């Protein structure tokens, strides 16, 4: 049986931990709201952008753009997007495991893999693998299109120079507050956007005036499209991170409370045992005096 004092100290410690986890839970909840709002704000932009892309690529189907060039895939670049901070349950672990799997699969196919790590956790995980080509730690906290642009343009440059024949992104998709899953998508080469059947039938294919030419607009739009994709993935990851942390901290707080309950029970039992022991002594002593 542990001593009374030990149990008391332990209870105090757990209580303090639960205070911290509760605070972190609330902070994460507040941040999640912000991240979700940003995702909402971004949606109209992304939708309009995709609509315009569809519109354009319908007219430029035949033309060749360097960013859309499909090559024999010998080298693949994986962009792994995680959060910067931990303490968010298995969120990052899931992404990193998915990334590991993808690396193994691609290398199994005889392809060379290089990594771009966005977020500190990805970098720390792959640090010793020697595959990292570029990493961007401490970037997830600032929501600036600028960051996404830097990353996207770097990937594009790497693709254009022929160092990577394909660029894939692995990130944590935000499905709901309770569910976040790692997902993968192809960033480069950019696939022509097919106009969905329903829309093509809509007959809204008005003749557009293009300024400059369709091809030149496409040249401008394609890099922007990459920015949009990367930015979107980063927003998803940040919302997922906060949601995951919220859940993790909620669980931690609950675990703390359970622990405190159990410890209190132990504490009371120990104290009662002590009192009973003392009483026995007194009674025993009194009996002996008779």
């Amino acid at each position, binding site marked *: 049986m542990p001593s009374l004092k030990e149990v008391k100290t332990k209870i105090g410690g757990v209580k303090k931990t639960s205070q911290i986890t509760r605070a972190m839970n609330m902070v994460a909840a507040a941040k999640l709201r912000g991240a979700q709002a*940003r995702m*909402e*704000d*971004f949606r*109209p*932009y992304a939708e*309009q*952008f995709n609509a*315009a892309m569809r*519109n*354009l690529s319908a007219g430029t189907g035949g033309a060749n753009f360097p960013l859309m060039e499909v090559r024999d895939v010998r080298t693949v670049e994986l962009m792994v997007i995680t959060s910067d901070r931990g303490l968010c349950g298995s969120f990052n672990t899931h992404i990193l495991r998915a990334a590991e799997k993808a690396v193994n699969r691609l290398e199994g196919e005889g392809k060379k893999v290089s990594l771009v790590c966005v977020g500190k956790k990805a970098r720390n995980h792959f640090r010793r693998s020697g595959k990292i080509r570029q990493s961007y730690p401490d970037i997830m906290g600032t929501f600036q*299109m600028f960051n996404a642009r830097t990353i996207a343009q770097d990937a594009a440059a790497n693709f254009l120079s022929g160092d990577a024949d394909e660029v894939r992104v692995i990130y944590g998709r935000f499905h709901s507050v309770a569910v976040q899953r790692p997902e993968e998508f192809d960033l480069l080469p950019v696939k022509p956007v097919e106009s969905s059947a329903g829309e093509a039938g809509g007959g*809204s294919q*008005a*003749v*557009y*005036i*293009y*300024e*400059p030419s369709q091809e*030149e*607009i496409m040249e*401008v*739009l394609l890099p*922007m499209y990459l920015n*949009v994709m990367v*930015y979107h993935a980063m927003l998803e990851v940040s919302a997922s991170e906060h949601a995951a942390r919220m859940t993790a901290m909620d669980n931690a707080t609950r675990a703390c409370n359970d622990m405190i309950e159990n410890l209190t029970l132990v504490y009371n039992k120990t104290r009662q045992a002590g009192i009973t022991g003392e009483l026995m002594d007194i009674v025993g002593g009194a009996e002996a005096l008779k």
Partner: protein
Amino acid sequence: MATQIQLEVVTPKGAVISEQVDMVTAPGYAGVFGILANHAPLLSTIKVGSLVYKKDGRDDVMMISGGFCEVSNNKVTFLVESAERGTDIDIDRALRAKERAEKRLAEATAQQEKIDRARAEAALQRALARLKAAGQQA
């Protein structure tokens, strides 16, 4: 026939404006162009500069950075990286940004800091556009 056109300015941080206006003037790829109601469908790239829209005989100015614009069905949509109303522009801040960018441009050596240079140039352009938009608004 409609006499007004719907103006929408959308940035990654959300829609900035959605209004019926009489006329829009924007910095296009080949120079500033104007759009009136019932304009033919158009798709154009946009440079950093001032977007002017006329409504009820009043001109309002907005600073926009690069992107593109689409006109269709009597609606003109600007998809730009950032947009700021002329009245919201912090002139002091823009002035400081301008000085900072100019200083950096002067210091940057040609080769070694190509990226910094491009960044500073973009910043300078934005600052100048802000100042201009603020000036036009006044």
